[in-house]
């Protein structure tokens, strides 16, 4: 049983391109575009991170249940989604994300 990487990623890439283009064309507000993707990243995080954390706890406690197989599968598939949507999240907040890596002085120097 293999895992798909590209198939679950396609609808999210298409969806981001759609909402971004709608925002750029002034059809939807920027806040809606941002908050829709914040909600998607939150849901992906809850399912993927939650499943991963549950699996880890089950493994440490030696609990073996039939739910482990779907948990592992959805952890991986939504982990791919989470990684992709995280890139979108950084892109959305690129201006503030840039401050993490560049010091304020250097930024001001670059501006001048």
């Amino acid at each position, binding site marked *: 049983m293999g895992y798909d990487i590209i198939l679950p990623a396609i609808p999210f890439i298409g969806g981001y391109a759609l909402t971004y283009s709608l925002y750029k064309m002034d059809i939807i507000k920027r*806040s809606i575009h941002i908050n829709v993707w914040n909600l998607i990243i939150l849901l992906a995080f809850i399912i993927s991170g939650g499943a991963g954390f549950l*699996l880890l*706890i*089950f493994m440490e406690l030696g609990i073996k249940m039939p739910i482990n*197989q779907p948990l*592992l599968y959805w952890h991986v598939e939504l982990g791919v989604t989470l*990684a992709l949507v995280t890139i979108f999240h950084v892109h959305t907040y690129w201006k503030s994300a840039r401050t*993490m890596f560049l010091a304020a002085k250097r930024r001001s120097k670059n501006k001048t």
Partner: protein
Amino acid sequence: MSGACALSCPYGLTCTAPGQCPRYVDSGGDGICDLGQPTTSSSSAESTSYDNSDSSSSASQDPTDTSSVSSGSVNNSSDTNASAVADQGNSIDNGSLPDEPQYFTIPVSMLIIGLYLITHFLFSKGILSRQKHRRIWNLLITVGMAGSGITGILLILFINLSIKTALNPSVTFWHVELSILMVIGTIIHLHLYRKPFRNMFRVLFGVKNFKVFKKPVSILVVVIVISMAVVSGQYLSSVDGDDTSKLNGISSNNSTSNQYQDSLNKSTSSVQSTSSDVTYDTTGVVQDTTTTTTTSSGGKGKNKS
């Protein structure tokens, strides 16, 4: 018995090729993960024990044969050389299967939460500016996200393409550790940006007052206290387990060494041993192996805490 328990699938799955996790091992070539087949060792032990009853020399014929997984009790025939050969074969089998790694879930989580409480305290006292405070945690979550994502994609590629490298266990280990950083970091991120987080629900669903917690820091403190109690409970239980296993180990080692000496004397006196001698030998060696594994697992328990 102990080997079968230690090398079983940690998720309790029976995967077909290429498997669902990087631990997939198929030495038999039947397309099913060896870790999900707990009956293989017992069945092979049964089959080889029948061989022992037929002829005492049959067990030592194929010392390097990995297809017939030999347990410690298999080759304890009258010949002492045969038991040594069986131990070699057993170690080869164990070496081909991955050991169960230890993930420091609770210590790492506690460390991150403790670090956040320190930086939050410094920020609330005005020593650390809001911008620096946020930057530190944004950097940490970026490290967690990037590390977890990259190692996760690597693991998917390893599974899909059936790539077996020596790096697989370490990639899995770092995926887990960085994911812990990512998960705890994300919860902290939500706390740092709680105003825009509430705003999200207002914008999308029209919820005006989205208040889950009134005092998040106090709830964090309660969570830390509960987790500390759990950790200390686990540590105390592991220490108790160590003491009892050590005591049992000492007593059983003495008894088994005497039994082993007796059996060796018997085996040297009569090479063509009877079936009763064989069973006597078997119990001695099995007890010996179980005591060594219990002491080692106790040591792991200490490290974990």
